[in-house]
């Protein structure tokens, strides 16, 4: 028989779960408000085209 204390969710797991949900909500809000990949730079919008062609190729 499993002890009742083992059946309960440990406190540290609850703390992690709350923090995790908060971070996920924050990320979703940032994505919805236009702070997604490549958009949180001051220039905004999607990947810009360099004005001077012929830069170093990677």
């Amino acid at each position, binding site marked *: 028989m499993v002890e009742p204390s083992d059946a309960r969710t440990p406190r540290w797991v609850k703390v*992690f779960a709350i923090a995790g949900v908060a971070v996920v909500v924050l990320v979703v809000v940032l994505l919805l408000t236009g702070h997604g990949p490549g958009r949180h*730079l001051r220039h905004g919008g999607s990947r*810009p085209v*360099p004005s001077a062609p012929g830069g170093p190729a*990677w």
Partner: protein
Amino acid sequence: MVMRPPVRRLALVLHVAASVGWLGAVVTSLALGVVALTSGDAGVVRGVYLVLEPAGWATLVPFSLAGLATGLVQSIGTGWGLVRHYWVLVKLLLNLFATAVLLLYMQTLATLADLARDPGVELAELRTVSPVVHAGAAVALLLVALVLSVYKPRGVTPWAGPTAPGRRRHTPPPARRGPAVTAS
């Protein structure tokens, strides 16, 4: 399937190596981001933003995927299991989250590299705190995962099963003489 001890040790070495490599790569990216924010040399600032993307593809992404893969092998190939213990499950979720954010953030690093390549973009426009924020958060996340790996805090999930290591069990009381009493 539980791995034999020599294989288990090799898998552990690979997992530690991948994780240490990932942490080191993230700390390097953090340092480069700080250099780009604080340096007064335009060449250095542009150089940092140019190198962050290829460095990310060469180190951050491979180490993150290797850490995830070796971690899966470690958990499945040992008695710990993938979802039996909370600390293993939390580490898995942290790793998946960090890898997903990293893969998305590679687009931002590509944009930064394009801007750094463009001589028409002023230095003040180019500087951004974004790489420092993301790398700093990644360092914090990886340190949490490291602490979980070392301390292995107690707690088994509802999916652990009755024979999971670390699950305490009551020793059944000695049988009494006389008629058995059944609970109904």
